[in-house]
């Protein structure tokens, strides 16, 4: 299509054309596939996994009937796991994508820059020191994540605030927090420490409907009330702070809101499942690769959910006798991807 044709053709309001249209088409197709994979894996996990359940019984249970044994496995274990996993994955994916897009760097995800460690350390401290084990854990994790985000932000604020400064500050804080977590674990009675360790690797084994509800309410509130505003403001923030301010955005407020939302969406799942390694880090870049464009935040949520559900399936079925924590699987898949991002970042010059 020639430039003249493009410029003379009537443009329908709100309908992107050309490159933009192809991109949104790609996003839609990617979302569709992602959803299919999510549902297929969920179904496989329910019907086809280890300790296979009879299909008719499962259907009966899903239909509302009570079948001894199957009902319990399904309603008290597998379904809560799926729901908690999907919700946690969605929260982590969106959280990572927000950070990555705001700072324009794939390394800037909360699990790399230490915000995840902040939430973990706060949750561990709450578990070990105060014996907290319910929804209040989310509040602790959120507070820890926000505190770390604030410290990192303050550290990187001297001079020009750049993505790489923030990432470096985050790495340093993350290392310190890991040491703190280790210290807390050594100070603890063995049984508690073992639970805490299991939690730290990221596990869905403790999933209950109650926890799913906590997650759903927390993430739902952030996702419905804050996320739309944050996404709108992100479109301006990523033009540079001066350009955003010139368009009438309160840059300071927008930044605080963005960090709060991203940390909340990341810390609330961590409080429930523990830090699921690399989910926040992976989801965004996967959407960028699928849409061959910038990171797509809502798609990153779906991607995160799919990642966790798939990882959960493998964790449950990879080995006959061992039920792996799901974090082990996400970690095993995520690490090579981190290496790939680093290599690619070096060659394109946008590395940390």
């Amino acid at each position, binding site marked *: 299509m020639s*430039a*003249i044709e*493009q*410029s003379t053709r009537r*443009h329908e*309001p*709100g309908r*992107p*054309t*050309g*490159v*933009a249209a192809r*991109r949104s088409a790609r996003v839609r197709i990617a979302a569709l596939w992602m959803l299919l994979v999510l549902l297929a894996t969920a179904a496989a996990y329910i019907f086809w996994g280890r300790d296979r359940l009879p299909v008719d019984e499962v259907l009966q249970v899903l239909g509302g009937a009570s079948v001894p044994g199957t009902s319990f496995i399904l309603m008290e274990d597998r379904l809560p796991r799926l729901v908690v996993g999907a919700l946690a994955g969605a929260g982590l994916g969106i959280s990572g994508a927000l950070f990555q*897009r705001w700072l*324009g760097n794939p390394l800037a995800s909360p699990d790399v820059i230490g915000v995840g460690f902040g939430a973990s350390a706060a949750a561990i401290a709450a578990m070990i020191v105060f014996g907290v084990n319910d929804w209040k854990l989310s509040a602790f994790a959120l507070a820890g994540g926000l505190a770390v985000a604030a410290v990192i932000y303050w550290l990187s604020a001297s001079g020009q605030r750049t993505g790489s400064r923030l990432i470096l500050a985050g790495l340093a804080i993350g290392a310190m927090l890991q040491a703190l977590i280790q210290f807390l674990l050594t100070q603890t009675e063995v049984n508690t420490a073992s639970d805490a360790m299991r939690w730290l690797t990221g596990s869905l084994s403790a999933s209950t409907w109650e926890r799913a509800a906590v997650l759903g309410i927390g993430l739902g509130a952030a996702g419905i009330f804050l996320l739309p*505003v944050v996404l*709108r403001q992100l*479109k*301006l923030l*990523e*033009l*540079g702070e*001066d*350009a955003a*301010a*010139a*368009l*009438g*955005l*309160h840059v300071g407020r927008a930044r605080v809101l963005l960090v709060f939302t991203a940390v909340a969406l990341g810390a609330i799942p961590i409080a429930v499942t523990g830090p699921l390694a690399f989910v926040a880090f992976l989801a965004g870049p996967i959407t*960028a690769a699928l849409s*061959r*464009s*910038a990171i797509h935040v809502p798609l990153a949520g779906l991607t995160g959910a799919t990642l966790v559900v798939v990882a959960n399936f493998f964790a449950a079925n990879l080995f006959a006798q061992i039920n792996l924590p799901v974090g082990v699987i996400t970690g095993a898949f995520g690490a090579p991807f981190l290496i790939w991002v680093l290599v690619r970042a070096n060659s394109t010059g946008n590395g940390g």
Partner: protein
Amino acid sequence: MATLQASGLTLAYDKVTIVDELSLDIPAGQVSIVVGANGCGKSTLLRALSRLLKPAGGQVLLDGADIHSKPAKEVAKTLGLLPQSPTAPDGITSRELISRGRYPHQGLFKRFSAEDEAAVNRAMELTGTAGLADRPVDELSGGQRQRVWIAMALAQETDLLLLDEPTTFLDVAHQLEVLDVVSELNRTRGITVVIVLHDLNLAARYADYLVALKDGKIYAAGHPTEVVTEKTVKAVFGMPSRVIPDPVAGTPLVLPIGRQRVLRTESVLAANGIFRGDAPVNEPRALAEGLEQDSAVIEEEAQAATRAVAEADPNLARPAREHLQTLAFQTTVLRSQQLSPSFRRLTVGGADLEDFGTNSHPLDMRIKLLLPPEAGFGPNSEIASLRPDALTSPAEQLGWYQRWLAIDPAQRGYMRTYTVRAFREAGHRDNLGTTPELDIDFVLHGKVVDGRLQGGPATEFGDRAQPGDPLLLLGPNKALTDDSYGGIEFRPGAASRIVLAGDETAAPAICAILESLPANVTGHALIEVPETTDILGTTTRSGISVQWLTRGTAEHGSLLRDAVRGAVAIPGAGVVQTTADPEDINVDEDILWETGQAQSAPFYAWIAGEAGTVKELRRYLVRDAGIDRKQVAFMGYWRRGKQEN
């Protein structure tokens, strides 16, 4: 139409004051451009004007109200800003980016409306980016990308548009592309534009209102023709320059002046067969000069005219050209050309000049101009008898100068000494006339009273002479003189290193000398002139490095003194006897005029100009630097503060 003002604005980063109590009214509907050196606070000022920076003191008033008292979104509907280096998100298309400019017009939940769509289309139309709508911004050229950003700011639909260095990192064609778009917007839509720019020439071309910032204060503001002066450029950028009319736009054009040590390349060019000295026909080649000199020297030289050929019968009347070394030539002004505020060149010609010359390069040859008195010449047989064809005897001519002096000046006029800038025989490549012609450059110094320059008779003559005016002059008789003619003082002998130094009165002679020097000579030519505009081109095939010193407000001669000291160093102890103090000459009563004899020394200096300065330089060269006086010509052409008559 929105108005934007700064009132007593003080801007600071961490207590370091960048802009200090600055007040500025941005003219509505015009293009204002802010220029200044790096770090002068121009970008900071723009940030404050666009509400990005909160002032430490004072206010920015948008439509008369403090800009910080208004909500950011309201401001963004009136005032658009393109920051210095905005970042385009990965893969975003032009249309998407431009659409983001609609943010201030959208509510929290309002969708992109048809009105928004129309604004985006208009912005693309105006910036010529409609064809780029679908292209990813990161694939565009620098100029296209900048136009897309401007379109984004335009989609904001504001009355005011502020741009911070929109041409940075663009090549010159793209710089013009961007500025053309912006000025077009101003002209067609009446948008008030404020641009921070570092290219002074582009600023002068595109600005209606130019603001020159220096150290956070406004140094000058107004129309570019008022603001862009050599003084402003010097003060704001700390750089000497010449300002000429831009031949393309008519706006001021700044030509920076480095140290002008460029002429050595002439020899390199010559080696490649290129001679810049071969100027096109009738183009001004360089400057010449004028000097007005004390009558005592004139008298001494006038005697030369009466040095008749020895063997001839002193009483036999013969044509003057056969026995007088100096003749009077009747000429007519052919052309008059203002070379600079201080220099005016008269080209004179006439049949009499067939007898003019020394059969050699004129170098610093002196001639006498007979300047008419107010009422015009009365009968003057003394001068008439010196014309080449006049029948006269050597005896008759004895004492002609005393007889001439005795005539009432109101009748005889005045005699002034000048050096010849250039002499072209008939048939010379650059001489279109049928008779020989002379270039004489007048230094115009005096005061302008009622639109007329008031000065000495020579200054006034030089200023007012028109083509067709007659001019009588005394000069060498071609038939009887050669390069040993007494009116030529530049006698470097075999010297291979030469220093030429002088003020504006010596500039024409120095330029003429430079044009004659061969390629194997090196050294320095130091010429002090009043202003940068008085720097005139010259060419030389020699290795002399030419340095024009622009005096500005410095004391007359001070720059020249320093430059000569730099060019001729005091030798190490014991090398020469450096204490021989030359005998004192009272330059207010006597003429300082010492010319060395031709010799074989490798160094030669030629110093001319204001007598006091020449005397100081003589003292330095002879006493401190220990240079043999025979190697130096010192000529006090004039004395400051002394009346010409």
